């Protein structure tokens, strides 16, 4: 019903191509997050699904119907904008009901469906207000309400939480997720925030420079990043990368430090490699390699330590409360089973 298929879609402005042929299959009811640094083409792709940008090449279909040449209003989608884009001169109720009114739905039914959406979103007591008299979070909810009253085939969200403060963002994040669990409509959600992507998505599409780097569930991306970019983009604090040489299962960092790897086919290769270690996979170890502490950041639950291994800065998170000061040398080691290996030339994961 609401499956969205993107096949080999390209976008060019004049001679500048900004999407280089991307393909994504989104199943009916799936919550897919497009994530990537700014300028990666994720918003453009979303706007192409919505019909707000032309499709230069390739094909997009929604619910089994190719929509390349259809106007936004004929695509059976609803979109939530970063700026909310509520009509300033209409009340909450009018904002939410306008699209139904345009479809020729009877006034009584519009009222009923708006009331239903308002109940889901907790907006019932605000229906008579104008957007200017609402807080950011309430406006966001109205924008979502405007989308859900129509029961479209798919919801499109374009960085909907970017204008909210940190606390409200966390709250709205879970509200959107609950909403999706409740009504189960296919959702494509664009964000630059990898935490939003990790917490909300059924599947994440990581994009960079107009290409898809990897598609997978949040934990797939976290545990088996396809390349160094995805490995560094997903996770916070981000993964540490140490370049060095692999020689018969023995990794020597550029500064000469030897780091033990788990034995396996991956580490059997030889040549220049980059290893990736997530901060939480570092541990204090009297038999480990020495690093010099640059700063410590106690967050209460854990302590982040920024330390220097030769020229490379690495971050570790430790559950222990460490009593050390900048300049101290501590010894740490990485859990061998959690070390990722990347080819230094191609940045691709070395699969083992």
């Amino acid at each position: 019903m609401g499956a969205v298929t993107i096949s080999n879609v390209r976008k060019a402005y004049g001679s500048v191509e900004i999407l280089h042929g991307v393909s994504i299959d989104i199943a009916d009811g799936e919550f897919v997050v497009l994530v990537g640094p700014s300028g990666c083409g994720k918003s453009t792709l979303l706007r192409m699904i919505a019909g707000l940008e032309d499709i230069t090449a390739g094909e997009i279909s929604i619910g089994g119907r190719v929509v390349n040449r259809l106007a936004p209003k004929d695509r059976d989608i609803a979109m939530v904008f970063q700026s909310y884009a509520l009509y300033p001169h209409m009340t909450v109720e009018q904002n939410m009901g306008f699209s139904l009114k345009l479809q020729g739905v009877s006034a009584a039914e519009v009222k009923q469906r708006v009331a239903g959406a308002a109940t889901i979103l907790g907006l019932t007591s605000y229906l008579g207000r104008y957007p200017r008299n609402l807080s950011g979070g309430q406006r966001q909810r109205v924008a979502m309400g405007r989308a859900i009253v129509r029961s479209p085939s798919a919801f499109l969200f374009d960085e909907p939480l970017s204008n909210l403060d940190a606390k409200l963002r966390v709250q709205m994040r879970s509200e959107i997720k609950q909403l999706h669990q409740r009504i189960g409509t296919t959702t494509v959600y664009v964000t630059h925030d990898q935490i939003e992507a990790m917490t909300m998505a059924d599947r994440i599409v990581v994009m960079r420079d107009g290409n898809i780097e990897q598609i997978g569930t949040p934990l797939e991306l976290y545990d088996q990043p396809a390349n160094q970019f995805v490995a560094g983009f997903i996770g916070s604090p981000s993964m540490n990368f140490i370049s060095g040489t692999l020689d018969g299962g023995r990794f020597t960092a550029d500064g000469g430090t030897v780091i033990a790897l788990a034995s396996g086919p991956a580490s059997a290769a030889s040549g220049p490699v980059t290893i990736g270690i997530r901060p939480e996979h570092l541990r204090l170890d009297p038999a480990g390699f020495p690093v010099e502490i640059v700063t410590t950041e106690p967050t209460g639950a854990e302590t982040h330590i920024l330390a220097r291994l030769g020229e490379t800065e690495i971050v570790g998170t430790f559950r222990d409360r460490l009593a050390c000061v900048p300049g101290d040398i501590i010894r740490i080691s990485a859990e061998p089973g959690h070390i990722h290996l990347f080819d230094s030339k191609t940045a691709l994961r070395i699969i083992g």
Partner: protein
Amino acid sequence: MRETITPRRALQMVVIAAIALTFLLPLYWLTISALRPEEDIFRYLNPFGPWTLLPNRLTFENITELWSGSFSRAIANSLVVALVTVIAGLMVCAPAAFALAVIDFPGRSAIFTAMIVSFLIPFDAIAVPLYSIMRGFNLQNSYAGLILPGIGNGLAIFLLRQFFQGIPKDLREAAMVDGMGWFQIFWNIYLPLSKPALISAALIMFIFQWQAYLWPLLIAPSNDMKVAAVALAQFSSAYNVSFGLIFAGAMFLSLIPMLIFVFFQQYFTNSVAATGSKE
């Protein structure tokens, strides 16, 4: 907190008041001259004395004479011409401005440039060729002949376009996704949000017609069709100048747009000052 009046502040206020009075003085003189017996109007000018500015005799003679003649018909003509121009003009200029601001069509900037140029050309320069065109359509001495040249107003289009451009793009994209076509977006979103700019454009078109002189004189000189500005000028002829009627007529000619302007003033200044950002 009450503001304390320092000597410096007091001086500023006096200077400001003096400047304001300088602007009001011609209007004041216009008004008292309209209310004086005709023979008093220039009588006290030289030497300049208190009676120059303070009328010693007041009369409604000029005004009653003014309204008993053909001037009332001329005022009515002016009102019809100006109001129809405003209504028809908004119906033409607002969609034009919307298209220029929002829809990306080929030749858009060329058309916009032509429109800017159109209001830089003095009307006097095109009056004669325009007259031959209108005569070709047999529109002399008709409302159509008076109104048509005022409808497509470049300045009004420019003002509306600037205002429309300030309305966030997200709003019209949301409207497109909601199911609106271009006309519905224009009608349901842009027009309701643009009241100040629409009022400004309406005032510009009203004033354009209200103070028009050369064109109405050319196209509609007949007694039935002449507008107030033309009628006023005809109070002075080669043989006879009736200053009482001129001042009385000028007073009403100024009063009507002034009342309209005062009524809409807040909107007018709003839109001229802030044709830009709008949340």
